């Protein structure tokens, strides 16, 4: 199976409350750059689908990673290559030249060129929190989509049975490849991904794998091709324009109470939210 995994570099999501907001921009330059967590999970998922867990150094398929970003986002790509991805593309662009729709159109151009069986990506990017690129891309390609995947089982690499995390529970669908799958948090739990190569009872370590030092060195030699946006799509216009930014309304810390009885009394007589 040939899998394309789009990645995005983001500002450290665990310190998102430290971004600086002015009316015309959000400045996250003080925060450490990290891969979008959901995209890291997508890489891990792609690796699990293309290996026998007993011999994880041998790829039984191909994993291609791509990012849209400036030169220094190549670090994010090299990190993915170090964990096992085979090759990479960087589409040269800055965030203000992009919106989700343009990224999806660019990805369509790359899919047309690479013809993967599967595009696997995070369900959302944790800066814009939009949750859109996978769905947009699926429509542009005319492919089926399985969004918010919490589990994936490969059926002979021809179809995937996907457990989608929806509001009411888990919706299980079968998509015939080629398809677009967006992944949710639980996809990196020990039994969430079952490939056709790995024994069904195999338990992966929870979370994503780390790269060995040797692999980090080797990743520097893996192919990384730079493209221009215009190589992938003739229309580079934006459909969304941000006009201003603002901080959230502040919420003050309240009071610490001494007892359960006092809490109940406050809820009844002060907040009046219980009777």
């Amino acid at each position, binding site marked *: 199976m040939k899998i394309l995994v789009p990645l995005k570099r983001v500002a450290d999501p665990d310190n998102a409350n430290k*971004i600086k907001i002015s009316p015309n921009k*959000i400045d996250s330059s003080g925060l450490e750059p990290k891969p979008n967590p959901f995209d890291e999970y997508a890489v891990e998922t792609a690796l699990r689908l293309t290996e026998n867990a007993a011999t994880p150094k041998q790829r039984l398929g191909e994993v291609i990673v791509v990012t849209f970003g400036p030169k220094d986002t190549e670090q994010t790509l090299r990190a993915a290559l170090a964990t096992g991805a085979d090759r990479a593309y960087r589409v040269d662009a800055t965030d203000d030249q992009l919106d*989700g729709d343009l990224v999806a159109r660019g990805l369509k151009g790359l899919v047309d060129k690479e013809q993967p069986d599967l595009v696997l990506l995070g369900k959302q990017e944790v800066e814009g*929190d939009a949750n859109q690129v996978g769905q947009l891309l*699926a429509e542009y390609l005319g492919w089926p989509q399985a969004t*918010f995947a919490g589990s994936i089982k490969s059926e002979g690499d021809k179809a995937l049975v996907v457990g989608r995390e*929806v*509001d009411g529970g888990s919706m299980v669908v079968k998509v015939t490849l080629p398809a677009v799958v967006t992944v949710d948090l639980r996809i990196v*739990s020990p039994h969430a991904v079952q490939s056709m190569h790995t024994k069904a009872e195999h338990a992966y370590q929870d979370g994503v794998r780390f790269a060995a030092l040797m692999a980090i060195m080797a990743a520097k030699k893996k192919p990384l091709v730079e493209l221009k946006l215009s190589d992938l799509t003739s229309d580079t216009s934006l459909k*969304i324009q941000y006009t201003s930014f603002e901080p959230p309304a502040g919420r003050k810390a309240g009071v610490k109470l001494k007892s359960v009885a006092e809490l109940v009394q406050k809820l009844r007589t002060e907040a009046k939210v219980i009777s």
Partner: protein
Amino acid sequence: MSRILVVAELADGHIRKSTLSAITFAKQVGGPFSVLVLGPGAKTAASEVAAFGAQSVLASDDSAFEHPLAECYGPTVAAVANTGFDVIVVTASSFGKDLAPRVAAKLGAGYAPDISAVKVDGASLSFKRPMYAGNAYGWCKITTPVQVVSVRQSEFAAGEPSGGSSPIENVAAAPLSAAAPRVEFMRLEAAKSERPDLGEARVVVSGGRALKEKFAEVLEPLATLLSAAIGASRAACDAGYAPPELQVGQTGRVVAPQLYVAIGISGAIQHLAGMKGSKVIVAINKDPDAPIFQVADYGLVADLFTAVPELVTELKKS
């Protein structure tokens, strides 16, 4: 003036309450709107939204809509949109988030996801959206003539019926897309619960990893007493103490109940993103430095295994 198409969501043959948030959006924008109801039972469910002032309620229970799959719904939503609608709106539930971008791509329209407010300036609409796990808001405009929007349920109060009776019209299902035959619905795995839906509950009782295997044992008596929905932190879901659909946060459900009780939840940024809009927040945690106390109106530094049963006992006294 914009003509707005509200895409309804059905569950068990009834209009989901989340749909009423999208109707509220339509009323805020002003101008005529129609409601599109697709799915099993749509023709009878259509009457449930006939008293909200819509110009028309459009319905189809064609077999194409047996299951809520974007590949099957998208072409018909887009075809109806093409009959003269400028703004297409759906509530940002998992159904709406799955469907709206596909509709936007099909229409060549821009998409503003998960908006928390709309500003109308003549013919121009601006949308406010939470970003960075709710640590910033951006105002944006869509540059295409047709605009697709999903609205955050917790930020658009469910509309009340305004009377009248909108005409109910049948719509034809659009031809199947090439993608539709390549996705097959197999089953929905959902725990049956008598509790209110997380997104709609007046009170939410939420638990963290500290509850361990006693998650249900500790929370259920309190939730029952308060007629509350039960929520959970990511850590509690990841550890398997609570099912994933209970997760409240940036990437789970976003809730804004009258009362949110956070029990054994430390208050990671991602969790706060999903509940900061609650009217009153109570936190019970034994760590006095837990970040949850920075947003809580009432905090109790206590061992939850004794405090929660005590709370139940105290609430029963009246």
